[in-house]
């Protein structure tokens, strides 16, 4: 729980789903300094003047790789919606990159905004008049109730139990350390450093596993992008048509927003999918090269890649290019045109793409399509969570779990480095405070109760 009013908050302020554009908004002192680390303007010597829109690229701050085109606007305090420094990033290409950037912002010092928090800051700083303040208050009251109910629904199950269990174990370890600190003259059991670390590591692993399910949970909540790629004329479009035909009675097909990528809506299990057909991948020059470049980029941002190969031909230069590009990823390899006779040197799936699940199909007569759809569903929805690990679908929960796991890593490091107990306690308290978004805050009294019920304290 957080009530601070000057720190940096961030959120995607467009609705989640399949929109073509997403807006990330940040507010608070230092918003611009934080956000610009993830943005590379097209213009040289860009001064980031206030109230001006700059075109550029969203970049991965670690390697400077451009991810997507974006527009950047900075509003300088007090001339902004909240009267604080505000940055708005308009990201072209839907929610996926927005989510990626939001996660990076959250890892680097921003905090996920609570319901109505931007408006609250606007009210606090006198930016909004009284009537609109009433509306803001109503909004907070209504939204927070809704959010609470939604949270409760999710928390009734495994996630809450797991976090509560983790919380209790952290409290128990912390209680021991606090007992050593506050009662140095009492006869306490020997300090077992190794057992302590083992216990903390076990909790940390569980929290990490749960945090990792967020990838799949997010697909469920926000939909998945499945990119179909391959050399020209291997049957990608036939495949698209076959899949789309099956779906046409349920959903309308929509044209793609990007010139060279055609998208179709599709359903796999519970996951809403965008199927994207890309330009044929090959070495190209001029205008075509640009389209091919877009196709490669599309591959990078895909949740799942389906590579279509013509099984009736001997693999060529294009295939080795694609193979090189995909070698570290998982995906589905489709050997199309299995209704045609195979050549002597037929494509070998284990050589082309060892990490993939391979399947023979015929897009033309429908052979293997049903099998492929099943495989698609399996890849996207998985076989369910690992036993005892809940599926995370909310960014807030993901932040809480991974924050707690990181604090536990630091705690174990501190123990191993021989740090004094109060510093280890510091880390454990941070882990508890990270979990508080899911479990509720840990009261000091619970800690004391744990100490006094386990140890005979008091001289």
């Amino acid at each position, binding site marked *: 729980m957080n009530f601070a009013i000057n720190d940096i908050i961030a959120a995607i302020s467009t609705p989640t789903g399949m929109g073509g554009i997403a807006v990330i908004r940040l507010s608070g002192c230092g918003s611009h300094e934080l956000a610009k680390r993830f943005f590379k303007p097209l213009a040289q010597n860009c001064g980031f003047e206030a109230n001006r829109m700059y075109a550029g690229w969203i970049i991965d701050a670690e390697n400077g790789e451009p991810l997507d085109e974006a527009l950047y606007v900075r509003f300088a305090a007090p001339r902004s919606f909240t009267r604080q420094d505000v940055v708005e990033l308009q990201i072209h290409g839907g929610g996926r990159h927005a989510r990626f950037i939001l996660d990076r912002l959250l890892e680097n010092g921003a905090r996920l905004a609570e319901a109505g928090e931007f408006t609250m800051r606007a009210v606090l700083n006198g930016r909004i008049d009284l009537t609109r303040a009433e509306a803001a208050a109503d909004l907070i009251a209504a939204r927070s109730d809704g959010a*609470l109910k939604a949270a409760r629904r999710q928390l009734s199950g495994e996630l809450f139990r797991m976090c509560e269990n983790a919380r209790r174990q952290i409290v128990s370890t912390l209680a021991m350390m606090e007992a050593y600190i506050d009662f140095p003259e009492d006869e306490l059991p020997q300090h077992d450093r190794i057992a302590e670390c083992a216990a903390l590591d076990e909790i940390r692993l569980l929290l990490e596993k749960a945090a990792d399910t967020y990838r799949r949970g997010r697909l469920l909540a926000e939909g998945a992008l499945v990119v179909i790629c391959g050399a020209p004329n291997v049957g990608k479009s036939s495949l698209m048509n076959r899949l789309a035909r099956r779906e046409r009675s349920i959903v309308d097909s929509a044209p793609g927003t990007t010139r060279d990528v055609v998208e179709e809506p599709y359903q796999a299990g519970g996951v809403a999918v965008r199927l994207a057909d890309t330009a044929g991948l090959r070495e190209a020059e001029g205008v075509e090269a640009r389209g091919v470049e877009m196709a490669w980029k599309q591959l990078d941002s895909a949740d799942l890649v389906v590579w279509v190969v013509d099984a009736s031909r001997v693999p060529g230069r294009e295939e080795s290019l694609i193979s090189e590009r995909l070698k570290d990823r998982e995906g589905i390899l489709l050997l199309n045109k299995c209704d045609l006779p195979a050549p002597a040197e037929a494509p070998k799936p284990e050589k082309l793409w060892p990490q993939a699940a391979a399947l023979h199909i015929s897009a033309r007569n429908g052979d293997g399509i049903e099998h492929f759809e099943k495989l698609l569903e399996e890849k996207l929805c998985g076989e369910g969570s690992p036993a005892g690990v809940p599926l995370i679908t909310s960014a807030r929960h993901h932040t809480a779990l991974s924050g707690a796991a990181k604090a536990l890593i630091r705690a174990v490091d501190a123990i191993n480095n021989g740090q004094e107990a109060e510093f280890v306690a510091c880390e454990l308290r941070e882990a508890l405070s990270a979990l508080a978004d899911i479990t509720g805050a840990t009261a000091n009294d619970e800690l004391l109760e744990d100490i006094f019920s386990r140890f005979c304290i008091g001289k």
Partner: protein
Amino acid sequence: MSETFDAIIVGGGHAGVEASLALARLGFNTCLVTSDPARIAEMSCNPAIGGLAKGHLVKEIDALGGEMALAADATAIQFRRLNTRRGPAVRASRVQSDMDRYRDRMVEVVHSCPNMTVVSGMVEEILFENGRVSGVGIEGGQSLHTANVILTTGTFLRGLLFTGLSTTHGGRAGDRAAEKLSDSLLRLGLTLGRLKTGTTPRLIKDSIDFSVCEEQPGDRIVVPFSRRSAGLPLPQQSCYITYTNERTHAAIRAGLDRSPLYTGNIVGRGPRYCPSIEDKIVRFADKERHQIFLEPESLERDWIYPNGLPTSLAEDTQLAMLHSIKGLEECRVARYGYAVEYDFVKPTQLYPTLECKAVPGLYCAGQINGTSGYEEAAAQGLLAGLNVACKLRGRPEIILRRDQAYAGVLIDDLTTLGTEEPYRMFTSRAEFRLLLREDNAWYRLAEIGHEVGLVPESEIEAVRAEMRLIESEIERARSVSIPSSDALEKLFASRGIETSRPGYTRENLLKRPELEAADLSEIDPEFSSLPETVREQVELELKYEGYIKRQKDAAARLIELEELRIPKDFDYRSVGGMSREVLEKLETLRPATIGQATRISGVTPAAVSLVIIALTRRRNRP
């Protein structure tokens, strides 16, 4: 007598002394009413001041201009520094005090203090007129007039003393209880609760065989609590350690049928951290032995305090229990242990200034608020006194934040969360523990003490100069380089450090866990010429810089919220959108700041946001 006082303090314990001294020293016409003017600041329980979190409180009291640290130093007969092998924030000082000298010194200080009138009497009533306090009524019909009363009644409100099946009325052994004052408080609309605490039997020194006990001497190096003390003048004494055994436990179990704890005679809740020996035996039946510390109560009086044996068992059971313990086989008892049960004012009825929300002008401090411990009482007494002084001068109240002082944590916990058992301070209660150290108490609080007028100009100037020097030395340490030398090589070799670079800065060396300021002093003459306190601060601030910065950042976020004050007449019903449960909590507790509101259990972030918005609206209204 019809004199009107600026403030009247009811009770001459550790809270009452600090409250009345602070007010009188600030020039206010102050009256201390106590049932026994010769027993001011009596140590009713163990003869020690300080310890974990408590030593911190004593230093904070010193920095704010209180008296406790000076008295503890002047009367210390054993000094120990606890947790020396742990980090700087949880190292704490403790002294065994000569309790007779402690009391006598406080009696002298109070009686000789200008502007102080000491009245002997038992207060029976709080006088209330025109919506606020107007004075106190004393047994026998006398009235004293004032607009500000500070209640520091300790365990005296309807106190009951228990030993075995016998129950007597009393505030503590040898003193009458305040029987009527509770009724007066109830009539004023306050809610009272009931708590219990206990004390040990006292033993005659020459009936104990110390030769079979472990000796626990004090530290060789002693450091006074107070910045104003030159040292500890009294000769240092040892404590001794012995243990209970199976026969002790059998003797206790045999007497449980006459224990008021188990017969249900005691209804008040006792402290979990200081259970009676019978409680320890019952709850931790597997534990083979319990430690007993034999502590001298004074240099002259031959009483020994067997710490670890608080009990309300019957006298013959106490004797059987004692005689089974090594070294105590022949001991004679000077006074039997007893439990005391007393009324307390539920502290959530107080503002963080310690003034009752429902009774303007009435303040409560110390055990009456549900705490235990001399240090906790003294800290509250001092702050209640200072807040009355601020009010009398029309200045803003003093509310210490949780990142500023243990005294702040103490008062915030009491007034925000309340307590169900006697509340004792622990370092684990302070979320900004790394910032709240004994060694920086003056740097944290002296400006506040100076502003209110208890820390004189000369002292604050010295503190400011030190702080400036520390700051500049921290910065300098980042650039001053320590060239390679034989001495450095030798030092590294002796600590198993591999030399990996041609040179080091002071900061590099101080940040190494293997090295400390003393090591640096040996190879860096310039550093060693700095005052010791400066060297210590430079070392700590650099060595633990990462952790300290994290806590400071967290504290900075808290400070914003503490600065958002909620007016006392704020109408929570006008806010709208809050659940009935949250509304009730806010209306009952009436938090002083948004920060305090966030800490009330069950008050949601959304509700706090709504209050913030409503406050802003109110501020913007023409």
